[in-house]
């Protein structure tokens, strides 16, 4: 009996203990990872009273990595009440994982109680300026991608919590926070894609008959006020949910949503148009552009339309604001910016899959555009130039670009095509619809991507690069060429990582040659490149192969900015022009500007140089390239008496591009010499195998030194008569970067104190001086290496860009690192010259 009573008491006590446990709930659902040396870092601890009685005298204490307990008095908690306490986090620690012991003390019915929680938190590496290398789509384990040189993972998961209205959002978000912690610790940053295209079911565009468009024409009517409200609400929820985690670094705002956009004839749209323009939407408006001008009654023989032509006016309005997408994207961007109190990037991609008129992507921070590395991998230069033209409409809007890792099987090695020798991969992946881009094409595309001043480079189709063994993706993207991974690793680590800060900064030169992409011709003649094809697009490639470094110019650019230093205006597919543009072009010509026109050019403009358009043959890619090259070279030759391009190459397979910073030129050269190889060559659709190439590249300037910053060596050159010529030798698909300076690099200097206490900061000032002892004041690449007392490279080490003669870095040796001498080396990436100094780190 006594024993029974004892057991009863024990059980009762246990129950009470469990009940006590349940009274107070303690959790850390937010971030548990911090950037080294992050200021004001705190661990947020959530407390909740699950019991019926009030809890008072609540005191939260925490000990980080064995340090003394820090306490915080939090008062009382009523039934179901919640409190958030914060424990300061010491971030002057070496990167790694540290224990944290939390304890909450409180009293219930006057009796003291406590609850403890042990968890780990992470200190991630220092954040340095770098070229973001973004993977659209994130494999389950990102570490192999990080080893390849990727810095950012774009996922759809975060936004989906609210976009797809997932159940238990708090649970999902906490899971995402743990994933973000790991990314932060590893130095990776996350991007997201807030994509609301699904709303077309609820808010569809309607045709003239008032009925929603069907099938492929379905599209969200982004002008619908309820739809706009819902989109903004969802965006707000997403940003609020993730804003406190710094690994969440940016978001794409929708994608491909304008592909199916077409005039909507809802009552609201009709009213809005009438209100704005004082008349109805013209009867002729039906699709995404007007009828072909040859079908329009009374269309002038001049093919010059007035700026207030009703159709031109409608379609200008439609593509700039009327279809609702640009204002919607601006609204979504504004919400992100309002809620985020830290750097956070918004972007829109694909940015130029619309007619050539400003505004796509709205006010987003950055425009990007993806294209494919075939049939010609320098495609990415053309679409990037187009993206620059689009971004020119919004001051400060940045540009990024993206190469697809995937290739459409149907366009490269079609299933069912009979060929003499099927390549080996076909037997392994007979049904693959999306395969891996050929390695040499990737090499050319990647070099081309970084030759332009972009703020980030992106890639899509990770499954085609590395097989994600943790996910069964049968039927999706297939990895059919493992060489592509090696190529990417080589360039991303040895070029992009090493020179990223410089690649991001060195400005573009103002173009001397530009292709006019006419919006009016898109509207009335169905023209436009849509970011990847057609004679207009190929004409950009033609000029690239001719080393004329073409830019792209919109009609709006001409009307706002004039022609600036432009010498040659190439006008492919300019069947129709608005009168002010037409008149501006005539005046440009009168002032000595040169016009290159094709057979479609409006009849009132007499080009200085007449060329015939070239129709691309899908089955004869090399013949098409040869035709474009021939015409490009002919243009170059015939312009010779009137215009001297800034750069030249000894053969058209060496494609050049120059950017300039002060008196330094950054000359990119890419080897586009290709033939049919053993990967896709048998099908004859894509010449995917690179060939070796050699020759010279010439720049119209005098140079005192030329450097290869990838290999960090001076290279041979000849500089006289106002030009500098550099001999070049390329492997298949290879690229090169040369820095041309007026004087050679003399030496490197570094200033820093002789000692510093651990946990305190010190400044390192690096300079590169030329042979006359003057600091190089142009944007210039350097590498800073810090080795701690153990001789280990620390995460303070980074690539950097000198600006205005120096680069200054603040360094804080960690509190828990070994004390002793640190070695600091500053290396000039151009010449390879370096200097080392030591600093004593003390207690």
């Amino acid at each position, binding site marked *: 009996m006594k024993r029974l009573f004892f057991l009863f008491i024990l059980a009762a006590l246990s129950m009470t203990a469990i009940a006590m446990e349940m009274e107070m709930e303690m959790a850390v659902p937010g971030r548990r990872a911090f950037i080294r040396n992050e200021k004001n870092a705190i661990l947020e601890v959530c407390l909740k009273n699950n019991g019926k009685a009030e809890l008072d005298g609540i005191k939260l204490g925490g000990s980080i990595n064995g340090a003394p307990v820090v306490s915080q008095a939090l008062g009382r908690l009523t039934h179901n009440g919640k409190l958030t306490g914060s424990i300061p986090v010491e971030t002057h620690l070496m990167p790694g994982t540290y224990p944290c012991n939390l304890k909450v003390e409180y009293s219930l019915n006057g009796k003291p109680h406590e609850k403890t929680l042990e968890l780990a938190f992470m200190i991630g590496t220092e954040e340095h300026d770098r070229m973001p290398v973004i993977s659209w789509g994130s494999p389950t384990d990102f570490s192999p991608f990080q080893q390849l040189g990727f810095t950012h993972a774009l996922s759809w998961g975060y936004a989906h919590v609210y976009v797809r209205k997932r159940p238990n959002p708090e649970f999902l978000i906490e899971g995402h926070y743990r994933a973000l912690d790991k990314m932060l610790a590893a130095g990776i940053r996350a991007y997201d894609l807030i994509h609301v295209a699904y709303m077309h079911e609820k808010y569809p565009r309607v045709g003239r008959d008032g009925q929603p468009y*069907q*099938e*492929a024409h379905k599209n969200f009517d982004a002008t619908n006020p309820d739809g706009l409200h819902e989109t903004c609400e969802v965006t707000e929820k997403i940003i609020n949910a993730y804003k406190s985690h710094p690994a969440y670094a940016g978001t794409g705002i929708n994608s*491909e949503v*304008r*592909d*199916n956009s077409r005039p909507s004839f809802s009552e609201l749209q009709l009213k809005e148009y009438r209100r704005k323009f004082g008349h109805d939407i013209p009867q002729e408006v039906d699709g995404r552009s007007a009828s*072909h001008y*040859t*079908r329009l009654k009374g269309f*002038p*023989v*001049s093919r010059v339309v007035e700026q207030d032509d009703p159709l031109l006016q409608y379609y200008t309005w439609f593509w700039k604001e009327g279809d609702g997408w640009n204002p919607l994207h601006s609204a979504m961007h504004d919400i992100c910016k309002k809620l985020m109190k830290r750097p956070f990037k918004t972007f829109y991609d694909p940015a130029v*899959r*619309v007619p050539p008129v400003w505004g796509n992507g709205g006010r987003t921070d950055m425009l990007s555009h993806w294209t494919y590395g075939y049939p010609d991998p320098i495609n990415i230069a053309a679409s990037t130039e187009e993206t620059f033209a689009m971004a020119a409409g919004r001051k400060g809007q940045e540009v990024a670009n993206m190469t697809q890792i995937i290739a*459409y099987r*149907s366009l490269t090695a079609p299933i069912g095509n009979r060929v003499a020798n099927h390549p080996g991969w076909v037997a392994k992946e007979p049904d693959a*619809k999306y395969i891996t881009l050929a390695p040499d094409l990737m090499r050319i595309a990647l070099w081309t991507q970084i030759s332009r001043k972009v703020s980030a480079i992106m890639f899509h189709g990770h499954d085609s690069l590395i097989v994600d063994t943790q996910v069964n993706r049968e039927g999706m993207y297939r990895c059919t060429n493992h060489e592509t991974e090696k190529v990417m690793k080589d360039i991303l680590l040895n070029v992009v990582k090493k020179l990223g800060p410089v690649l991001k900064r060195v400005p573009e030169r103002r173009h001397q040659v530009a292709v006019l992409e006419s919006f009016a011709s898109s509207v009335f003649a*169905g023209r*436009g*490149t*849509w*970011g*990847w*094809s*057609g004679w207009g697009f190929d004409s950009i490639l033609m000029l690239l192969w001719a080393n004329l470094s073409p830019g792209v110019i919109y009609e709006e650019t001409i009307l706002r900015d004039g022609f600036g230093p432009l010498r040659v205006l190439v006008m492919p597919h300019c069947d129709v022009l608005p009168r002010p543009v037409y008149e501006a072009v005539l005046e440009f*010509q*009168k002032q000595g500007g*040169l016009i290159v026109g094709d*057979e479609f050019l409006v*009849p*009132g403009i*007499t*080009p*200085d*140089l*007449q060329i015939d358009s070239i129709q691309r043959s899908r089955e004869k890619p090399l013949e098409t390239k040869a035709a474009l090259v021939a015409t490009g070279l002919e243009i170059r030759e*015939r312009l010779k*008496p*009137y215009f001297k391009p800034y750069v030249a190459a000894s053969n058209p397979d060496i494609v050049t591009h120059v950017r300039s910073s002060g008196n330094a030129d950054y000359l990119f050269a890419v080897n586009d010499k290709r033939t049919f190889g053993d990967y896709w060559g048998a099908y004859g659709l894509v010449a995917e195998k690179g060939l070796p190439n050699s020759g010279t590249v010439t720049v119209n300037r005098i140079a005192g030194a030329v450097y290869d910053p990838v290999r960090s060596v001076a290279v041979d050159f000849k500089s006289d008569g106002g030009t500098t010529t550099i001999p070049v030798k390329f492997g298949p698909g290879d690229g090169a970067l040369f820095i041309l300076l007026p004087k050679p690099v003399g030496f490197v200097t570094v200033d820093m104190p002789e000692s510093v206490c651990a946990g305190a900061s010190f400044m390192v000032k690096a300079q590169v001086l030329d042979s006359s002892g003057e600091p190089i004041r142009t944007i210039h690449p350097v590498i800073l290496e810090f080795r701690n007392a153990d001789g280990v490279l620390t995460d303070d080490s980074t690539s950097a860009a000198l600006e205005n003669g120096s680069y200054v870095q603040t360094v804080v040796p960690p509190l828990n690192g070994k004390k002793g001498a640190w070695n600091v080396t500053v290396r000039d990436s151009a010449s390879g010259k370096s200097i080392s100094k030591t600093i004593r780190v003390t207690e």
Partner: protein
Amino acid sequence: MRKYVTMHKATFILLTFVLVFAAWGAEKSKGIADNDPAIRRAAFRRLLDDPEKARQAVIAGLRDEDRVIRKRSVYEYYSGNGVKALPELVKLVKDPEPLVMDILLSCGKDLKEKHDSIVLLSAIAKVSVLENIRRQADKMANFTFYRDNKRLKDNPAFDHDLITARLFQLPLDGWRFRADAAMDGHTKGYFKKDFDDSKWKILKIGNWEDQGYSGYDGIGWYRISFDMPDKKDGEAVELAFEAVDESAWVWLNGIYIGQHDLGPSGWDKPFWLDVTKEIEWGKKNVLVVRVEDTAQAGGIWRPVSVELLK
């Protein structure tokens, strides 16, 4: 003596004026005969800017050896003279350059009076040395059906692969046919859905030469009715023609769909036309094809199908 000097002065001033003016004029004309097209065209443009010389420059330009100057001259001449330019334009219809003939076609289309328009277009259709231009002029004068039929797969904004999910082949036999030597079937409504074709001959898919029309080159009209099943899900619907010898203009349910108009070289080339909007699911549909053959065999000689794309 004074008078003599004064007269001399006046002559001198006049002479100077004439010389300066001539030099100025010569400067303007400088380069018009240059072999470098850029210089030649720049000189031509300068002349156009001179009100005194523009008219003469344009008239001379109509027969300049440079096709670009001829194109601009035709445009300027027509813009300045309108219908009065017609007699001169008719004289130019043998120009071998597409660049020039294109602008002549535009003028022909632009003339306000149909009669004037037909004069120029018929002249082009009759004597142009460019076959494509002749055909265009003929159609502009006589047959105006045209539609830019855009297939979904060619939509530059559509970045996805499409596959044929279902294929409904139209009958190989039972096509109603009528030769149209007068080329006026379109004015008689042959393409209309409810047109009575019961008296037309019945042909099979194959050359019309082998089915009672031996040696016939010209226009022929085909009509066929077919039932479509109830609506199936898909991205788009297309009419797939495996081959029509040579050119074809297509109507579905009385609505003009598009054309396959490559001339003689189009005889063995397959083509597709988007009919997503025009197809009537679960109903009887009427397909009408106007075929033009200019030599040897002609007609719809390979099967026609309706394809559902996903």
